[in-house]
């Protein structure tokens, strides 16, 4: 178990170094000078050149790279010109809303997906199960930025019961924050919930054929005990994997939702960084989102090892 964790940790470091290096050089292709973006189009050439020299953008690329790389290893991701502070600090300031959205979406999706999937397995031919499977297909096919706008049209513009955009931190005002979180989270759930219902249905129905279910029934356990104690426990494993591997998609969805609903998270910061040609900020955000993604998947693997002893043996 410890060996696996260490091995995964080593792989994680390799991946992050690769991501950082590749992204650094890709971003060098971005046209336009960061100094020009800061000073505006009326600044003279010499002003731009002076600011470039001050920020270090006039040095050779490899020198900039080693400088940035050295900083990254020690946790210093450089200076964000558009935010006016260190990138590490800026990223951590915008991490909160993104994590709130990710956590709320994941927890709610799992909580709703379990009873729904159990129902479709119990009564595969009922009209409600068919409707659920149809809705799941629909959920997987709906672009979330469009769904967001349609829901805004219905609930914020026409019915006027929910705000069109904005964000309040759950820490400062838990009640009002829910008010603002409803639409973004509903949009994000529509995708993940559909995926989870489908995954869980597949794994539940294949576990249902196992002999331990027959044994449990033969022992005279009540059907609900068989379902929740024996079946669900084993069928939940693939769900954990799906949550891990789908976390990137979720983060991507959050980026777009943050831009639409003007939520000051990492996606919103990324959008600002792109508009301002703030290379260190863009680099920092991509690297931190990669770090979160890899960490989540490491946790998933560890959780898997704890829950399912069979994995540990391999």
């Amino acid at each position: 178990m410890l060996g696996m964790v260490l091995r995964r940790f080593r792989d994680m470091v390799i991946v992050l170094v690769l991501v950082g290096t590749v992204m650094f050089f890709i971003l060098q292709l971005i046209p336009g000078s960061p100094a020009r973006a800061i000073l505006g189009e009326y600044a003279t050439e010499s002003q731009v050149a002076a600011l470039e020299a001050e920020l270090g953008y006039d040095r050779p690329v490899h020198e900039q790279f080693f400088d940035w790389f050295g900083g990254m290893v020690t946790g210093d991701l450089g200076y964000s010109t558009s935010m006016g502070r260190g990138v590490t600090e800026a990223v951590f300031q915008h991490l909160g809303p993104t994590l709130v959205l990710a956590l709320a979406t994941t927890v709610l999706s799992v909580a709703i997906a379990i009873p729904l999937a159990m129902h479709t397995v119990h009564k595969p031919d009922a009209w409600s199960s068919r409707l659920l499977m149809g809705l799941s297909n629909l959920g997987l096919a709906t672009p979330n930025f469009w769904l967001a706008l349609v829901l805004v049209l219905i609930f914020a513009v026409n019915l006027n019961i929910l705000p069109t955009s904005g964000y309040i931190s759950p820490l400062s005002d838990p009640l009002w924050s829910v008010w603002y979180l409803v639409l973004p989270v509903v949009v994000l759930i529509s995708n993940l919930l559909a995926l989870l219902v489908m995954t869980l249905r597949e794994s539940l129905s294949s576990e249902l054929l196992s002999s331990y279910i027959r044994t449990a029934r033969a022992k005279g356990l009540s059907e609900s005990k068989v379902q929740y104690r024996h079946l669900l426990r084993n069928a939940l494993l693939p769900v954990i994997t799906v949550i891990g591997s789908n976390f990137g998609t979720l983060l991507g969805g959050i980026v777009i939702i943050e831009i639409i609903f003007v939520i000051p998270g990492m996606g919103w910061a990324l959008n600002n960084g792109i508009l301002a040609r703030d290379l260190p900020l863009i680099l920092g955000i991509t690297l931190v989102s990669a770090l979160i993604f890899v960490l989540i998947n490491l946790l998933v693997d560890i959780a898997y090892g704890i829950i399912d002893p069979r994995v540990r043996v391999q």
Partner: protein
Amino acid sequence: MTSQVEPYMGRIGRLIAGQWRRDRALLVWGAILIAIVVVSLIGPFFLQSPTSQSPADRLYGPSGQNLLGTDQFGRDILSRVVSAGRVSLGVGAIITVCAVGVGTMLGLIAGYYRASSVVIMRIMDAMMSFPAIVLAITLVIALSSQAGALALVIALIIVFVPYVARVVRSRTLSLAERGFVTAARGSGVRGWKIIVIHILPNLLPTIMVQATFVYAQALLSDAALSFLGLGVPPPTPTWGNMIADARNYIESAPLFIISPGVAIVVAVMAFNVVGDSLRTLIDPRARSVADLRAAQRRHKIAGHQAYVASESR
């Protein structure tokens, strides 16, 4: 002549009938998919020009002349949705063909030459370790100065290659262990020839299924990037940039924002469902399960014992 054609038609008829009993989703959604492609290919010839403006008729509701109303420049929304389909489906097709091609090649190499797998799959892992849309956004912005409108296509190809490569590699790994590959190697066939002649044909069904999923994802990502203003620039309509346009007129012209979105949903769903059904069709084990299920449905066997596990995802 008829004697030659009839048995053939009969065979196709039986095939379709069998498929209908087994899983009608493939036939229904396959037909919808074909309809979407045909309409976007020939539709623009029968409709008004998607770019001809008439500012006096802006943001009209549906009428006999404009079935879905008009947009902010008085352009016909129906004809814009249809020609946007041509652009979006075309962009999706290019992305799918290239991503599947490159991904298959890399997956074959990584699966057959184990040593190369360390390098190739590490790079693929790194590419898959951050949100696809974030990678795509950064790539589009980085490439747009050199590649222009092609930037989106290149970026999405790069994004989707790892997903194909991973699946192809894992299939190749198991195929490379099979007897016929060992036999070929034993009789002196060289490496690349084994890959092309013996392994690749066995992968084609897997690749085709993978292609439908990449296509669906490409449509969604293309729409998202166009929505952010990073796709094909106006006045050429795409489903994504139409939604971005409609965003400002969400109150006055609801059909303007609903129509392109519905088009995306139907197209993506068609690709997803067809891909899913194809996967069932090419996997003999999954197919027999589906047959059993259909039989049970006909005989109306109820209760827990009647439920047969479907194919695992």
